[in-house]
């Protein structure tokens, strides 16, 4: 019996050559009265990239966390490389070569990128101190995997708190990769990445596959799944319902297995309406990295913000909302000059903002689903009394229109799956009946069915006269929903696409900066 070189800590028998990388059988997981998993099954072959799909709240993250030792299963058995295991802690799973990308990220925002990636595993000097030079160099090398797609500001010494959501996802990815695992689980690792970053990420995963690494890939973007994965397991309501070879199936069949039929609306066709006076006009606004942005959005219009990630789209939305106030230029609302110095000013004027960073910007941790839903309405309607009475059914109605899955409104927000939390934060703002809706990557983590519902709702709002500004890290979403797209580069608008130029070709060309 020899210890494998990868896991010096635990003397264990050499992996049985025949067993699959992961074999999870009949996994049951209950949280109190809630049954998250009824019959979770997953078999992942060695050196395979295996998709794990299903609607929000079907149990993907729960199953992942059981495999990675974060949760203990209520019942069921788990075999890793043919050996039955029972991990009590994530450390034990790590020692067995398993690493999990946490959907809600496992980063500590006030710490640096390097400290986060190597937390608890820092390279040491001979004297036993943290070897800062090596720590920085190794982090540097990891960041270099993403090359120039990592975007500005992603350095070993940068604080995680200062990074964009996409960059934070990259850091979480690097943290996983730095453990050199033989089995990786990527739980919605691409949710905030743009097309270029996704391409690099896939190349990394494919290279690891060639080296024998097995990957579980969770995503709500089916194009990605079909581009990358070898097999797919589909879950529904806590049960595994199918295990298929990607080559033998197609997107429609997989969607049907996941959620039944989805009425996915096609490209938005702009109803010919008399040009309305703009609701919001920004005249050469700037601040932070934003430079000289001029735009106007009219009631009933959906204005898209395009370009590579982190080029100022989110900064503009935050600026318009007063979250990070604009320092230069002028804003007009209904033609009247306004100053928006804080979110409270924006809310009072009927502006709503769905942040792209739900953990930092939206979750009222430890509070109920009701409170999380009601937060914006209470402020907007200047209520001084909080009675669940009429408010609860109203909010439940909005949440239901996005098919939010929860047990009771009084349950803690943390009991919801990632996608269902995101729906709560969108519903929070829809309930205020806004005139201007600022959406920063709003579909991050929500499933296909809910996405279709959300955009149907957003188009409805637009038709009823709401103005909408939308940023999405997913190009197809932006093209399908927008009437016009402003393409950002380096904090400025470089091109406006509309009508015949509103397509993937022009968008990509403009985003990379070689627009005519």
């Amino acid at each position, binding site marked *: 019996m020899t210890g494998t070189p990868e896991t010096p800590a635990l003397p264990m028998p050499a992996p049985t050559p025949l067993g699959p990388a992961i074999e999870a059988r009949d996994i049951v997981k209950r949280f109190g009265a809630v049954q998250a998993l009824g019959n979770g099954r997953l078999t992942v072959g060695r050196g395979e990239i295996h998709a794990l799909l299903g609607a929000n709240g079907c149990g993907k993250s729960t199953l992942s966390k059981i495999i990675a030792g974060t949760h*203990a299963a209520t019942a069921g058995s*788990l075999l890793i490389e043919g050996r039955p295991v029972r991990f009590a802690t994530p450390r034990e799973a790590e020692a067995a070569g398993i690493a999990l990308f946490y959907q809600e990220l496992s980063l500590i925002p006030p710490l640096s990128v390097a400290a986060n990636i190597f937390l608890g595993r820092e390279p040491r000097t001979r004297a036993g101190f943290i070897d800062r030079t090596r720590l920085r160099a190794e982090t540097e090398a990891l960041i270099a995997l993403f090359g120039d797609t990592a975007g500005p500001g992603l350095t070993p010494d940068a604080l995680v708190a200062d990074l964009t959501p996409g960059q934070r996802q990259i850091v979480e990815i690097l943290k996983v990769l730095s453990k050199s695992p033989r089995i990786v689980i990527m739980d919605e690792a691409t949710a905030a990445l743009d097309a270029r970053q996704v391409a690099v990420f896939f190349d990394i995963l494919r290279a690891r596959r060639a080296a024998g690494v097995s990957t579980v890939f969770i995503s709500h973007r089916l194009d990605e799944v079909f581009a990358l994965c070898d097999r797919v397991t589909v879950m529904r309501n806590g049960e595994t319902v199918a295990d298929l070879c990607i080559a033998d199936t197609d997107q429609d069949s997989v969607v049907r297995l996941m959620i039944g039929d989805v009425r996915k609306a096609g490209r938005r066709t702009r109803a010919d309406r008399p040009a309305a006076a703009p609701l919001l006009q920004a005249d050469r606004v700037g601040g932070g990295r934003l430079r000289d942005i001029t735009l106007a959005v009219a009631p009933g219009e959906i204005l898209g913000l395009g370009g590579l990630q982190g080029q100022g789209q989110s900064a503009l939305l935050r600026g318009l*909302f007063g*979250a990070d106030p604009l320092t230069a230029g002028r804003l007009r609302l209904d033609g009247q000059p306004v100053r928006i110095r804080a979110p*409270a000013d924006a809310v009072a004027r009927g502006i709503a903002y769905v942040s792209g960073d739900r953990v930092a910007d939206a979750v009222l*941790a430890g509070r109920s689903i009701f409170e999380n839903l*009601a937060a914006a309405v209470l402020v907007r309607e200047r209520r001084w009394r909080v009675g669940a009475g009429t408010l609860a059914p109203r909010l439940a109605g909005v949440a239901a229109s996005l098919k939010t899955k929860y047990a009771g409104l009084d349950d803690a927000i943390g009991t919801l799956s990632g996608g269902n939390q995101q729906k709560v934060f969108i519903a929070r703002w829809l309930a205020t009946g806004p005139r201007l809706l600022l959406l920063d990557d709003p579909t991050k983590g929500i499933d296909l069915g809910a996405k279709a519902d959300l955009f149907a709702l957003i188009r409805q709002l637009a038709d009823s006269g709401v103005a909408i500004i939308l940023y999405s890290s997913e190009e197809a979403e932006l093209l399908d929903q927008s009437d016009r797209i402003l393409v950002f580069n380096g904090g400025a608008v470089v091109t406006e696409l509309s009508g015949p130029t509103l397509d993937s070709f022009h968008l990509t060309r403009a985003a990379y900066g070689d627009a005519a």
Partner: protein
Amino acid sequence: MTAPSLSPSGLSTGSRLATLAASPLALALMAIIVLLGLGEMLSPGFARGDQIIRLLTVAALLGIAAAGQNLVILAGGEGIDLSIGAQISFGAIIAGNVMNGSDAAIAHAILAACGATFLVGLVNGLGVTLVRLPPLVMTLGMMAIIQGGLVVFSQGIPSGNAAPALMGFINQPALLGLPGILLAWAVLIVLMGLLLRRTALGFAIYAVGANARAARLVGLPVRAVRTLVYGLSGALAGLTGVFVIGYTGNSFISVGDQYMLPTIIAVVIGGTSLAGGTGGYVGTVAGAIALVLLQSVLTTLHLDFWGRQLIFGGTLLLLLALYGRQTGPRV
């Protein structure tokens, strides 16, 4: 795979205790019953009706002051009010001077004491929100300033004493055999419940404590809320001061000092998280009663002030360690 006995964070020994602590209110109620039984064993008559009312009166003084501490801690941002003890002394001395033994001046005394301490509390709040001093530093500094100020202005011997009606309110039965202060405490319990569960301010306190960034992004005035809770904490300490002088008859400059640490312990026993955002006042009430019982049992054992301090400090650390276990890895 049967259910592993280890909890996800691998704290097998802590997990059972943590489950028990999962309901701090239940734990505090249990402590109350155990302490009552223990007291009765050590000194028969401990749990007699009039004794219990006397204990509850002391608990009310602590509980009213702890209400302010509770609000400050709930609003998060490492919020804590270390100046509560000094503010109680401040309120007691103001009240003593204004009343000076006259029943007619009780209302004025309450207004003056609460008004002054409310303003002092607001200064605490502004120091924390505008000057961005850590709450620990700001309120500790304020404690020193008040204590120093009281010594300087009263030359160490404060004048003034309580009005007879106020002393009666605290020490004599008023209704159903209960003294007025217990009725006042009952009213405060109801008001705190309404404030925290039914008003926008209560909602805002929780939201600000749970995630200040998110609270700001829905348009809540984070700084105003945080400033206000320090003001309310001051006013409640001032009110406690008025009752304290009614309880003792006259005041001395350190009369409130002994309340500072117990207000924090009562809040923590009651299950309010020191990180803010979760908890409530009912737990704190149970915590205050349990603490006063503990103090009383220790006195029966002839432990002096410092011996009791030792036990209190130990209790606080033990509880924090216990409750801390509940919040495992956040994933």
